[in-house]
């Protein structure tokens, strides 16, 4: 069992793990942005939740995200 023969598999395993978990992380991040955008759009149309009185909360969140 020559270790050198297996280096490809080790690299492939680490790459595959990065791809799988990276895809999950990317999905989570993009999903977060999409939800914020949708909430901001709805707020522009004058819709807010009854309990969320502060209009600025979403705007702040959006600004933090853009920064």
């Amino acid at each position, binding site marked *: 069992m020559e*270790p050198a023969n297996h280096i490809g598999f080790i690299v*492939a*395993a680490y790459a*595959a793990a990065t791809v799988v*978990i990276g895809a999950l992380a990317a*999905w*989570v991040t993009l999903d977060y942005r999409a*939800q914020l955008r949708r*909430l901001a759009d709805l707020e522009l149309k004058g819709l807010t939740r009854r309990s969320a009185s502060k209009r600025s909360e979403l705007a702040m969140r959006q600004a933090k995200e853009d920064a």
Partner: protein
Amino acid sequence: MKKEIAMAIVDFASPSRFLKFADRAIPWLGGVTVLAFAFAINQAMIAPDDYQQGATVKIMFLHVPGAWLGMLGWALMTLAALGTLVWRHPLADVTAKAAAPVGAAFTLMCLVTGSLWGRPMWGAYWVWDARLTSVLVLFLLYLGVIALWRTVEDPSRAARAAAILTLVGALDLPIIKFSVDWWNTLHQPASVFRLGGPTIDRSILIPLLVMALAFTLLFVTLLVAAMRNEILRRRVRTLRLMQASAAS
């Protein structure tokens, strides 16, 4: 006064409270995860080769945490399912839904790395080894739960259906594990050998544990972030329903 205390307890685990917590916690969790990975990958690089597996033991540093977190994901979903069915807690629904894709991704990582370990060690990408097979069934169960979440439109109805399925799965998983072990000893191919023998050397165990810790932190970070997304998604849904009912 009594009423206020009760409200405070309800509010403590309320989705809005959780959102505030998540906003503060996610940067910290992300930072700690990055630090943990920096240390863990360093440990994994300097770990010596296994006398039997050679350098491929380094794949185990991914494979084992993947298996552990795949199982942890289902355990969390089981607890959340109890929360859904017994207390009807909205945060339990959110936890159960967010945990499914996260658990599935770590299970997939376990399968893919196991397969890439199997090729040099067993001479095939896939061997119907008992552990791999059980993990494959776990992955299929995860996909079933995700499919169910994506089929039922109303979130709280979906949560209750998924909760029942999760509990039945939690009941069946040990039986599946037992069956597959039994089945595997019946069909044991001669070429399969066990990982590292009965004991794992400290030089390999420590990097393994450090890696497992780093992946666990990553799991928690992603789970909290996915839960935050889910809460926001529900707000969007509520607002859209309000919009639709206002328009009509």
